[in-house]
């Protein structure tokens, strides 16, 4: 009995301590965003959504020239057409989403407490298709990316507000994503953080490294390199391969947890997808 009481007492004391030894997502977010403010004091918070273009004038000028009439406009049009086209059963994508799927990009990814898994926007789009008897679309590019582009476009200006519910499974998913982000991988033994936190703003050969803050707000992205639009997890795979690590599959738990953590770190920034990048 005494032992039990002392255990309860200890638990009670631990519970009442300020959470200095166990960082919460809110603590992480604050520290993450503070780091960049100190690192790039001249960059206004809202400009982080523009990645390297917030840091370099010459590339910004080229990007602005492209943004004047960006190639992803063709994708938004296609995406809108598909979004509005009914499934064989007569229903549309609107039936699967809050607010009929308009202006909701800023809520993804979210943690589904029913399934205990992270759901990305692309994941939700294909889930909608399958729930309505349609074949799922390819995860990395093509029609899925176009639909995602349209949905992002209708959400432009909305502020990212990723929620981490008070559910140990959600916190676990968040922590797994955070761990992925900071863990070294590949033959080049590099972590996401190596380039995008510690070396943000530095060059890797002739490329400028973008800050991880605001990094996902503009997806899906039309990359000049791809000559087409691609999704967040297409880029995750490509980036992993660049450090000579084997890419995970799109919408794998690893990438979904990563996207959950990664997007959460941009809470407070506005949706500006789809975007154009090199």
């Amino acid at each position, binding site marked *: 009995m005494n032992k039990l009481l002392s255990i309860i007492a200890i638990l009670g004391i631990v519970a009442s301590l300020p959470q200095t030894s166990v960082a919460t997502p809110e603590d992480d977010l604050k520290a993450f965003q503070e780091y960049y403010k100190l690192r790039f004091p001249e960059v206004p918070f809202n400009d982080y959504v523009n990645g390297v273009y917030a840091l370099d004038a010459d590339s910004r000028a080229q990007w602005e020239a492209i943004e004047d009439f960006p190639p992803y406009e063709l994708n938004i049009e296609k995406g809108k057409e598909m979004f509005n086209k009914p499934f064989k059963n007569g229903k549309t994508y609107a039936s699967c989403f809050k607010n009929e799927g308009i202006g909701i990009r800023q809520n993804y990814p979210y943690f589904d407490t029913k399934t205990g898994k992270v759901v990305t926007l692309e994941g939700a789009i294909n889930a909608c298709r399958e729930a309505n008897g349609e074949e799922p679309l390819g995860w990395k590019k093509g029609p899925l990316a176009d639909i995602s582009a349209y949905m992002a476009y209708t959400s432009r200006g909305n502020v990212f507000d990723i929620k981490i519910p008070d559910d140990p499974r959600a916190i676990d998913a968040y922590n797994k994503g955070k761990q992925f982000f900071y863990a070294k991988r590949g033959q080049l033994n590099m972590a996401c953080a190596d380039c995008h936190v510690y070396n943000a703003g530095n060059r890797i*050969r002739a490329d400028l490294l973008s800050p991880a803050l605001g990094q996902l707000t503009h997806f899906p992205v039309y990359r000049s*390199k791809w000559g087409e639009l691609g999704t967040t997890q297409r880029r995750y795979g490509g980036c992993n391969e660049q450090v000579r690590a084997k890419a995970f599959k799109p919408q794998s738990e690893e990438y979904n947890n990563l996207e959950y953590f990664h997007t959460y770190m941009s809470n407070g920034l506005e949706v500006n997808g789809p975007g154009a990048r090199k």
Partner: protein
Amino acid sequence: MSNMKRRTFLKGTLAAGAAGMAVSAGLLTPRAVLAAWPTAAFEAKTVPDALTSLMGSDKLDGSDKITIKAPDIAENGAVVPVSVETSIEGVSSISIISEKNASPLSASFKLGSGTEAFVATRIKLAKTMSVVAVVKSGDKLYSTGKEVKVTIGGCGG
């Protein structure tokens, strides 16, 4: 005698082969499609050849009345925004030459009578080179150039 015959025979074979490859690669325009498109100019491998083929002359007068806007360092050589504007009067055409591309002539714009001497587009540059704007007014060709660096990125760019 037999040597000469053999040489001619080989030359003929090579010529037919090259032309055949070019056609299958879609490099030769079917004649019926666009009679006006200056095939030789676009296929010319040197700047003087491209200019002579397109304009009848490769004599360029440098001009400070032409503004060419292009980046100092191209973010991606596949999509380089370029614009050309000039205050020279009576401009009939503006052409863009990418001097070190395999085929230097990138584009040529023929302006209508009320059209301003300004064009903008996006071009592919194979490597660091000068992009040259050639403005035709009357019989004269004016030009200015800008060096654009094209680099190897580290992020798969």
